[in-house]
């Protein structure tokens, strides 16, 4: 399977990754190689086979609607790259 440079640029935007020209060239080659290997899966007949997303039987796991403890605000915000008072600060979004 061949991935083009345009494909790589599109996926990079979806992934929110800024790539250098060199990285784009490398990914064109490497992703094409890996996806060619992955195409092996087309040999397998999967008609009517249920997909597995998790190996253990899972239902929605609910907890009671009760107030419980939460992490201290100061401790959590201590990791923020930028903050104001009790808020995370981000670059301006609306002009």
């Amino acid at each position, binding site marked *: 399977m061949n991935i083009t440079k345009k494909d790589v640029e599109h996926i990079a935007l979806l992934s929110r990754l800024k790539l250098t020209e060199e*990285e784009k060239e490398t990914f064109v080659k490497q992703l094409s190689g890996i996806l060619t*290997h992955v195409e092996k899966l087309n040999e397998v007949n999967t008609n009517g086979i249920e997909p597995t997303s998790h190996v253990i039987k899972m239902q929605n*796991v609910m907890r009671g609607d009760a107030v419980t403890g939460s992490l201290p605000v100061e401790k959590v915000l201590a990791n*923020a790259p930028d903050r104001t008072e009790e808020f995370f600060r*981000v670059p301006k979004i609306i002009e």
Partner: protein
Amino acid sequence: MELYKLTIHELHEKIKNKEITAKDIASDVFKRIDSVENKVKAYLSVARDEALKQAEDADKEIKAGKVNPLTGIPIAIKDNICIDGVKTTCASKILENFIPPYDASVITKLKASGYILTGKTNMDEFAMGSSTENSAFGATRNPYDLERVPGGSSGGSAAAVSADECIAALGSDTGGSIRQPAALCGVVGMKPTYGRVSRYGLVAFASSLDQIGPITKDVTDCAIMMNAISGYDKCDSTSADVALPDFTKSLIKDVKGLKIGIPDEYFIEGIDPEIEKSVLDAVKLLEGLGAKSERIKLPHTGYAIATYYILATSEASSNLARYDGVKYGFRAKGKDLIDMYMETRAKGFGSEVKRRIMLGTYALSAGYYEAFYKKGQQVRTLIKRDFDEAFKKVDVIITPTSPTPAFKIGEKTADPLQMYLSDIFTISVNLAGVPAASIPSGFTKGNLPIGLQIIAKPFDEETIIRAAYTFEQSTEMHKKRPAI
């Protein structure tokens, strides 16, 4: 004293008999770290002062008669497991300064059992890799040959145990990341059944595959660690609410009547002949002790790598979307918000992480979801069914853990697919969710460790421990240490 050479159970006996204190053990382990860490580079951070303080506290407990199996035992923790107030980087620049505000559930349990934290161990960035070369902070070396990799992604934990820089360690295993480095470093590593150990506080890579497990010097220590970390946790919605055995009760030297399956698909061209011989000799040894073996088929084995690299990367691309430079971690400057995201992630992630985010995003993107992600999930069902069928006939499956012994640093970094193939024997186990352990089965002529993988059905770690213990107690392999 050279207490760092001992196992958990040996040290526990000495503590109980008041021959040594927790402080003696901690001092010895840090002396060992001082003398070999500059060669091995197993740790990203070492908690010496805190550890000596913890050891004093442990000694008070011991004096008061409160001695748990892990009281005063120095343990290393992989750097993707959160510890309150201790830097947790995932070996990534993007989390270089991240200090978790809470403990992972396994850490809560270890703290309650009186363990001593030695430090946080090196790994492939976000646990993505098979050699620990993908760490943003430099590669770890194999204690048996410093020119070779320790395996990965829990390479720091495996190397630290092997080089006696801790008594035991925790790792995490998404596609072989506990078992493959354990094999390459000549130690014991177990990936428990999916859901057996809480993932709360383990930094997510591929949530349907990730599992925390122990890396230890012998099988007895593996059972002790499994007792300490297993069990249902309401903080992890995929944690299994099942009966919890005492794993040390399975430390029985007896395999009479044990049915061993040898899958044809794991003895293929390309496998190192010394490894094949070592593993088949181990099976013979167990047969001599009363086990029976038969050839079995796991027909979809050849599709495991392709399935894994679709499903694991898809989950990773979603899980790693959280690193956006807003709530925690590294932030780069950008013209506007989206530019800030893109610069942050470009500068914060290493190349393997970027590659997997790209691959996963592609597999989940419009027009490709059915062809890749759904197809992968369907093949995963077939791989799981292979194991279900096999375990109708046999109690355990025995295979090599890795197709080759430790490879040279730099040998596989240029070709990602070649690196992915080092997980060829471990990946199916994660896709099927079954438990498996790697134990030392021998050494190559070049004195590199060989690992043997024992796989059992879901929630039957006990049978793995019994088979592993029987083999270990019949050989001298687990007593060997690298000359470093």
